[in-house]
């Protein structure tokens, strides 16, 4: 570890920081455009080509808005909550590998630079931890606002996050069992090549989704619930509790919540791709293409796969009505958690059989 390594880490952090903001800008535009299409509307079309700069305009507007502080707020926490939402959102993406590690000669030394913020050996746990921290932002925002709607939103967030975090955690255990690692880069690496099924090589990529489809389904549902998106947006629920936890926020503080929400969507989609769809893996035609293209292609694959999920998020939002609270709880505790437990049991058994053979054999 010398100063070049430190510099590289700093560079990656800055790049990801910028990337996530650009992604947010594009994602909000994308969502509005796709929802508009699904409702036979045009959507934003004034700012820039196809209205692509609409979010920039909205962001600038929020910049100049007054940050109204209601009289009854608990000021310290009220101030901390938006940051508590935004910071874990940025941190969470840091462990997601979004490109193939590149090997460059720097400072007289060959260095393998991972295209991700930090290649933690407990990456998956870290992600779960960060997503739990993000819930505090919502709860604290709701509580410190000193008004009833945010409080209701905060209370809902608590229950919802706990229920769905359990399901999400359980849905990830089979992935860990199957790939034998919590390190996201290793999970991606284990999904390269072709799928082998009982010794037969199939013409399918070795993505976890083909083996662990139920986990994938549960993870995706739980991810939608974790990010408080429709149809699980009870925390915000404009029609019932006028925006929930962010009712009393305005200006830049409100923008931070918004930013966090969209980064979380992007991160969750990135995680789904990393864990189940092979991450950045895909054909790169090494040797036949220029070096730079081959180095960038994995990132392109990653972004393409993520876009599929982002589209799903928007599609769900445009289609489904919000769940009732008891339906939310029923789905979480009575469907997803038992299903993931049964599946976990099954996968655990299968893994044991693969490793030790049948107990009677």
């Amino acid at each position, binding site marked *: 570890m010398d100063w070049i390594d430190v510099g590289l880490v700093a560079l990656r952090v800055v790049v990801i920081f910028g990337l996530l903001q650009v992604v947010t800008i594009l994602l909000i535009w994308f969502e509005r455009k796709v929802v508009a299409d*699904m409702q036979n*509307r045009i959507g934003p079309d004034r700012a820039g080509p196809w209205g692509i700069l609409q979010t920039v305009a909205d962001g600038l507007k929020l910049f100049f808005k007054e940050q109204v502080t209601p009289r009854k707020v608990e000021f310290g926490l009220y101030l901390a909550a938006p940051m508590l939402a935004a910071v874990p959102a940025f941190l969470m993406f840091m462990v997601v590998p979004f490109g193939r590690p590149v090997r460059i000669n720097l400072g007289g030394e060959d260095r393998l630079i991972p295209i991700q913020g930090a290649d933690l050996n407990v990456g998956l746990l870290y992600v779960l931890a960060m997503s739990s921290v993000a819930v505090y932002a919502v709860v604290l925002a709701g509580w410190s606002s000193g008004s009833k709607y945010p409080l209701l939103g905060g209370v809902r967030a608590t229950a919802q996050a706990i229920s769905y975090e359990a399901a999400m955690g359980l849905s990830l255990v089979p992935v860990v069992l199957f790939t034998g690692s919590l390190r996201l880069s290793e999970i991606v690496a284990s999904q390269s090549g072709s799928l082998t099924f009982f010794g037969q090589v199939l013409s399918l990529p070795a993505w976890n989704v083909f083996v662990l489809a139920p986990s994938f389904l549960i993870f995706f549902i739980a991810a939608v619930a974790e990010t408080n998106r429709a149809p699980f947006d009870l925390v915000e629920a404009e029609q019932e509790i006028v925006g929930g936890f962010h009712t009393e926020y305005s200006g830049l503080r409100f923008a931070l919540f918004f930013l966090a929400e969209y980064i979380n969507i992007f991160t969750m989609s990135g995680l789904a791709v990393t864990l189940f769809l092979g991450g950045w893996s895909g054909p790169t035609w090494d040797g036949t293409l220029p070096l730079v293209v081959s180095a960038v292609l994995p990132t392109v694959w990653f972004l393409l796969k993520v876009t599929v999920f982002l589209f799903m998020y928007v599609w769900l939002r445009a*289609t489904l009505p919000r769940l009732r609270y008891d339906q939310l709880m029923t789905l979480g505790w009575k469907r997803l958690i038992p299903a993931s437990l049964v599946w976990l049991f099954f996968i655990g058994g299968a893994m044991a059989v693969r490793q030790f053979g049948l107990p009677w054999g």
Partner: protein
Amino acid sequence: MGPVEAFLRGMAVTGRQFIATITGRGLVTTPYPKVMREKPQRFHGRHVLNRYEDGMEKCIGCELCAGACPARCIYVRGADNPADDPVSPGERYGFVYEINMLRCIFCGLCVEACPTEAITHTQLFEMSTTNRADAIFTKDELLVDGDGQPNHMFETDRFADLAELAKADGWMRATAPQGRASYEGLVAWSGSAGVGVRPPERGQSGLPDEDEEASEGADG
């Protein structure tokens, strides 16, 4: 229908509409104001006060419109026509005529009440103002000029579509004055400055002629 099937069918609906919109078939909105929709013939938009073909004002200052107005937003003062230079063919003419567009509900009762077809709706609805006083349209703004050209308060405004203001008597032409379908297609209105006697429209019923006669016979 189970929840999963219901879910899939719902997703199919939005998916279908998405495809329809991006292929350009499903779109129902227009990028207003770049593209303005054709409005219905009898659209209740901003009012105008019309003139006869010889340039005389149609309004005779009878205040029937003011009396009919449920929003009480018309203010009319009649005055005797000067004998040497009459403004309207009648005995009196509308000396003061004001409509408060902030109160108007665009019900069209003034148009129906008017005995001389002096006040009519147009198809223009873009008339937002930056202060309340501007929303009170006076006779200067309402009255068309000698060639039947309507006035617009904001001539330079990008929304000032004079062509829409000129479509002034759709209601009149589409319905018979007595409201009976059998009068449809009969010209029962006076000509207006600039456009002359506008032709009748086949209005709401579109009855063939025999039916019209038959229904008249039954009435008689």
